């Protein structure tokens, strides 16, 4: 189907009874827009998904980094504890239960490493026997209930404990790395416990760049917070274990969640990564609005672009529909006009036919009685003259004259009516030749009169030569007729330019007329002279005017009584060819 056919079909749908079909228009409007909307929605959600995934994977990478770093640190601590616990002299002292001497060897360790809180030695049963820096009232206490003890005593392997509160004041939060101290034969003789401040964890997590309002949280295997920038390390132990991320972290390697901050109302984006071996977790938290700020910014731009595209599409769709419906309405309008026109021209045709029939009857029937009047009067005059008085013969002559006169009237009237009905047969007319031909023909009828007539060069024109000839015949006949009483008749045919328009004229020095009656000049049967003086029926100028009007021109006259008359006419724009 061509575009034209589609547009036609559409127009049929959109315009019913030459009125806009709004439901259909709305439907088509939406139909045009739907691919745009569909594509926009599709790309929007794709972009959103991708940006989201990007933001999530970025934060997961941070969590992974944090978890890896944490594991390295815990590995190192474990290594330190193992290497300390396996010193030969130290082991020997512990085996001999010389606790004070043993701890003395390690005395420098907490001083060298600022994040070491304390270091202490316990027996295999968990009873503390020596510590540095030393605290009062702890020696001889049993700490078997501590997590570090349970952890290390399980398989007698080094163990990183959960976070707990220090037994002695100030009770800040610590965790412990416990390593078994074994004799040569492999039997466990004691436990070396390195107690570390959680600050140590906090320090390096703070340096991890998460983005605005973001931070890293470290939780131990029990879900208690080991490091959190917003909680003081000496504060209460906070358990995150109820939080899904924390619950999941030991079971799943990593993940991402969106959840409401326990402490605030803000939605948080949480990604987590479990720390292998130790069961701790690294959690990256950031308010959702900040985490997705870049994404949201991009999406906002995308939406703005889509809004623009949408607007343009709407405008286009509107214009297309408007174009189609308006054109259809205009077409319908034209169709109606054409129909009216066709009806009108049928009417005109009918009227013309009627008029033709009428004038045919007039032509035929109206003259028949006149013929009889004239004919029988004539026979009376010619064949029965002897029986008629001279006066009677005169009366009969008058009867005949009038009959002939009326016949002329009828003929002229018919000629005039025929003129209105005849179609114009326009062609190029050499106006000069036409006027000269008419003038020559008329001149021959003027027996013995002295006539000074001239035709100057006239521009050619586009018109019906037969009708234009009638114009010159009538105007020049009048000129000859009304100059009859002049010794020398002056008749001039010419043209002049008035306001850029070519105006033809026929001038004479005849009887002229009173300009007061100029408006009656071109009426049918209107005469400004008595018929005894100048014969005529008063149809000639009416015919001239009709022809000029039918060519789209104008006609007017100027005259002075007893000085002459000038008739001017134009033939309408484009009908005169200037040389």
């Amino acid at each position, binding site marked *: 189907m061509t575009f034209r056919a589609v547009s036609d079909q559409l127009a049929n749908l959109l315009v019913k009874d030459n009125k806009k079909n709004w439901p259909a228009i709305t439907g088509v409007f939406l139909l045009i827009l739907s691919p745009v909307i569909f594509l926009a929605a599709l790309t929007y959600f794709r972009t959103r998904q991708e940006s989201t995934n990007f933001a999530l994977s970025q934060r997961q990478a941070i969590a992974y980094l944090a978890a890896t770093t944490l594991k390295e640190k815990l590995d190192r601590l474990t290594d330190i504890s193992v290497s300390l616990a396996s010193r030969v002299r130290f082991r020997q002292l512990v085996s001999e239960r010389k606790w004070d001497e043993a701890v003395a060897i390690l005395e420098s360790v907490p001083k060298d490493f600022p994040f070491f809180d304390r270091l202490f030695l316990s027996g295999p049963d968990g009873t503390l026997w020596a510590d540095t820096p030393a605290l009062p009232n702890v020696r001889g206490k049993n700490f078997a209930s501590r997590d570090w003890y349970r952890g290390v005593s399980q398989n007698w392997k080094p163990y990183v404990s959960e976070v707990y509160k220090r037994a002695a004041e100030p009770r800040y939060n610590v965790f412990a790395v416990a390593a078994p101290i074994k004799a040569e034969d492999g039997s466990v003789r004691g436990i070396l416990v390195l107690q570390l401040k959680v600050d140590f964890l906090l320090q390096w997590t703070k340096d991890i760049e998460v983005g605005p309002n973001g931070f890293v949280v470290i939780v131990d295997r029990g879900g208690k917070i080991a490091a959190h920038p917003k909680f003081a390390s000496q504060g209460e132990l906070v358990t995150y274990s109820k939080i899904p991320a924390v619950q999941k972290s030991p079971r799943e390697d990593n993940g991402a969640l969106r959840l409401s901050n326990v402490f605030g109302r803000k939605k948080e984006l949480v990604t987590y990564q479990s720390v292998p071996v130790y069961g701790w977790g690294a959690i990256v938290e950031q308010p959702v609005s900040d985490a997705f700020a870049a994404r949201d910014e991009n999406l906002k731009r995308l939406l703005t672009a889509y809004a623009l595209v949408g607007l343009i599409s709407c405008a286009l769709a509107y214009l297309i529909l408007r174009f189609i419906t308006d054109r259809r309405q205009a077409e319908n309008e034209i169709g109606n006009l054409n129909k009216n026109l066709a009806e009108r021209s049928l009417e005109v045709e009918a009227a013309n036919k009627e008029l033709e029939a009428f*004038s*045919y009857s007039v*032509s*035929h*029937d109206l*003259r*028949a*009685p*006149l*013929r*009889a009047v*004239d*004919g*029988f*009067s*004539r*026979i009376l005059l010619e064949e029965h003259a002897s029986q008629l008085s001279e006066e009677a013969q005169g009366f009969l002559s008058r009867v*005949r004259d009038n*009959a*002939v006169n*009326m*016949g*002329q009237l009828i*003929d002229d009237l*018919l000629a005039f009516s*025929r003129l209105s009905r005849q179609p114009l047969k326009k062609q190029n007319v050499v106006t000069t030749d036409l006027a000269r031909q008419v003038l020559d023909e008329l001149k021959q009828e003027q027996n013995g009169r002295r006539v000074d007539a001239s035709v100057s060069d006239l521009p050619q024109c586009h018109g019906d030569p037969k009708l234009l000839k009638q114009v010159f015949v009538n105007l020049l006949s009048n000129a000859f007729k009304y100059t009859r009483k002049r010794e020398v008749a002056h008749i001039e045919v010419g043209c002049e330019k008035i306001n850029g328009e070519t105006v033809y004229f026929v001038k004479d020095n005849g009887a002229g007329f009173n300009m007061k009656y100029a408006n009656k000049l071109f009426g049918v049967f209107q005469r400004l002279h008595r018929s005894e003086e100048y014969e005529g029926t008063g149809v000639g100028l009416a015919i001239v005017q009709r022809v000029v009007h039918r060519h789209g021109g104008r006609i007017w006259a100027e005259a002075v009584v007893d000085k002459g008359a000038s008739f001017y006419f134009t033939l309408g724009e484009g009908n005169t060819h200037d040389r």
Partner: protein
Amino acid sequence: MTDNEAVEILLVEDNPNDVELALHALKKNKVSNRIQVVRDGEEALDFIFGKDTSSGGPSEQRPKMVLLDLKLPKVDGLEVLRRLKGDPATRSIPVIILTSSREEQDIVKSYDLGVNSYIVKPVDFQQFNEAIRQLGLYWMVVNQAPIH
């Protein structure tokens, strides 16, 4: 008019005034005395083609000339002309249209159908008289008709 005097002119005319004037002119100009007048197209066709004629004349008359009005009751002049010129037997009879109509369409149609002359009846009887005289002179005297 007697049987052995063959009709020379058939005048087809419905208007009695025009009939009388035409007869007057024809007689005065001594064109012919053997004139048959019929008053409508049907009578004209019956006269020529020998149907049951109201004129009582013999069937299949072949006049030397037909003067034919156009506007006639029953069958109009153009139809009569068409029939006359359409039949090989009557095609050579000169037909002169004698009418009041100056309408161009009538003139064109008549010539299309093969009319021999087309004369517009003038109101002036003198002109009419002259036209009839010349007509009779030409078609009845000068013109050489084909021998049947």
